[in-house]
């Protein structure tokens, strides 16, 4: 027997091991996984600065300027978003943290834009390859669910509607059609009749952007392709954003499942495609002028451990793949040993 053939079985086992592990490595790279951690009891749904977040693993999503459709963003002012998530088997909460030196709270003046951030989910359970194909914002028949937080909405919810008299303190106008009350007047109270609303067209048309009596800073939306973002009839989200020391801390939350077919349902039998975006108001970023991430796979942790679809290697569930691999190795090894023993005997 040659020296080479002596090591043949060992080399074979090694090659198989490398093949298996490198295949696993490749899978891991294509799907960097983000886990929504399980935590018993109440979740920090209203407090983006809660100490409860300190122990939650952070997934850092890099974001780049949107360049697929016009108008594009030329240069990023935000490069990454730190994302965390918790669920308690009933509700789920996400926290997005990113650096933004300027706090842009309003979209009132004609040249003023607010900071914002969004989460995006593919509503259908698509595999990683299918998800990458739909790029961002979904496609015909492939619905995405967007959770969009806006700094101006946050201000309105926290401090009351930011009106023209707040943006321009010396402003005075003594009459509006069908207004009640006294100048300088306040929205929505002094303009709440149907006749007065008719002069606030966006509001009377039911545009959620134009509602001066808003109660949440987060909008629940759908999209099925570029330019199709549409506010949902059912608004199911809670959220809150706080700016501190050059960073935005924003939480988004919802029940894990609800009865809205247009919403993402966080069930334990699947993984989730999730993406992130942020807008910097002082750079006049709005709409397509944004920084966004690629899709990431998210898994849900439950009381019992990480949930999700069974993992597969070469089309077989992981357990079966390993068993097959071991059997193959043993058979080959056995065969080789048998041959070697026979030769020795001969």
């Amino acid at each position: 027997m040659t020296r080479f053939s002596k090591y043949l079985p060992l080399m074979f086992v090694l090659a198989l091991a490398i093949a298996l592990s490198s295949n696993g490595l490749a899978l891991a790279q294509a799907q960097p996984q983000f886990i929504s951690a399980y935590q018993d009891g109440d979740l920090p749904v209203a407090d983006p600065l809660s100490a409860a977040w300190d122990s939650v693993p952070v997934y850092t999503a890099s974001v780049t300027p949107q360049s697929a459709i016009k108008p594009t963003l030329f240069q990023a002012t935000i490069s990454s978003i730190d994302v965390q998530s918790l669920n308690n088997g009933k509700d789920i909460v996400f926290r997005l943290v990113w650096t933004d030196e300027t706090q842009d709270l309003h979209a009132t003046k004609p040249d003023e834009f607010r900071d914002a951030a969004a989460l995006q989910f593919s509503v259908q359970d698509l595999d990683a390859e299918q998800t990458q194909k739909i790029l961002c914002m979904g496609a015909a028949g492939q619905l995405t669910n967007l959770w969009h937080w806006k700094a101006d909405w946050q201000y309105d919810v926290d401090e009351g509607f930011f009106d023209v008299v707040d943006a321009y303190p010396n402003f005075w106008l003594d009459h509006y059609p069908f207004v009640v009350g006294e100048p300088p007047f306040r929205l929505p109270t002094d303009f709440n009749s149907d006749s007065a609303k008719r002069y606030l067209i966006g509001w009377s048309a039911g545009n959620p952007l134009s509602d001066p009596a808003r109660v949440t800073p987060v909008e629940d939306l759908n999209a099925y392709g570029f330019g199709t973002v549409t506010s949902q009839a059912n608004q199911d989200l809670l959220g809150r954003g706080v700016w501190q020391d050059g960073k935005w801390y924003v939480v988004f939350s919802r029940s894990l499942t609800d009865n809205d077919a247009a919403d993402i349902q966080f069930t334990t039998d699947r993984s989730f495609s999730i993406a992130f975006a942020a807008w910097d108001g002082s750079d006049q970023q709005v709409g397509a002028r944004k920084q966004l991430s690629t899709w990431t796979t998210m898994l849900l942790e439950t009381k019992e451990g990480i949930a999700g679809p069974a993992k597969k290697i070469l089309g077989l569930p992981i357990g079966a793949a390993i068993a097959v691999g071991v059997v193959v190795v043993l058979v080959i090894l056995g065969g080789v040993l048998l041959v070697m023993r026979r030769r020795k005997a001969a």
Partner: protein
Amino acid sequence: MPKVYNWQIGREMDYPYEAAYPEKQFGAVFDINKCIACQTCTLACKNAWTSGRGQEHMFFNNVETKPYGSYPLGWDVRLLEQLGGQSWSGGVYTGKTVFEAAPAGRAALGFLPEDEDWAHPNHGEDEVAGTIDTGAYFTLPHPVWMFYLQRICNHCSYPACLASCPRKAIYKREEDGIVLIDQTRCRGYRECARSCPFKKVLYNTVTRVSEKCIACYPLVEQGRQTYCTLSCIGRIRINGWVNFPDKAVLDSPVDFLVHGRKVALPLYPQFGLNVNIYYIPPIHVPSEFLLQMFGPGVPNAIDTYKRVKDDPELLGVLLLMGSTDKWIEKFRVKEGFAYGYDAKGDEVSRVPLKEPIYIRPDFNAATGAFLHNTP
């Protein structure tokens, strides 16, 4: 990028969408020579459409004094500067339109006016172009001049506002070519406000979405002219359907002025929007300024206009301006009168080409009073 034909620049040009034309196109002619800048149009429009909270700075119609006036501040000079040199060869524009000059990642060249730019609607009002030297006297054109420019949305055939909205929230109506913003779909991105060269999309500071001139469509639908037209003190305006030259209907007043006599010209045709509001240029203004603003048709337009007394048809249409609140579909001039007809062919207006002259005695014997024009 698709190519579309823009007759106002005499050539094809790039536009983000394929050409699609409405059944009819809303249009108007404004005779600059007759405007007195009373702003009645501006207030009629404001009362009708922009008297709400959040619309304080909005004028769908404004009248500014040229050369120094502009609302928002510098809307035209800033874009002209961005566009660089603009040259014509014969009737063909050889420079770039706002679509052809669009920076990478943009639908059109443009800028978003700053907050303060909306704060001075009467900036430059009644200011003349230069100083008047001792001993100066008037010649035609005037050595020192100014004129009023009346501005509404042009309801363009190739709107830049529509082209740049990533949400397709802006649409051009099939029935009349009026360009509108869907108030339920607009999300206040202001891409339209950035791209409209005329800055006729305005952001509502309360509803946080954009709004624009609606061409008084509820009136147009009833066969009436717009508020700015019917309220005009100087009777400088007329509304009508306007067609491309190959489809011109020459007994329709706007087509007659634009294509028949060619006295009414597009505003900044070089921007490339194929606008639908036309201007009779002021005859007293030096041609360099007018050529830049209204294109190469200026000398012919002024020449034709000056000879109006020998042109009863042209005179007739000019006199029909402001004579009725009804939409004039067709006109006719015969036996010293100009007639306007509606879509059914019914007469809606009749004006004499020459005002009858009455001579009265300067002394009223019954009252024993002298009748003078001066006190």
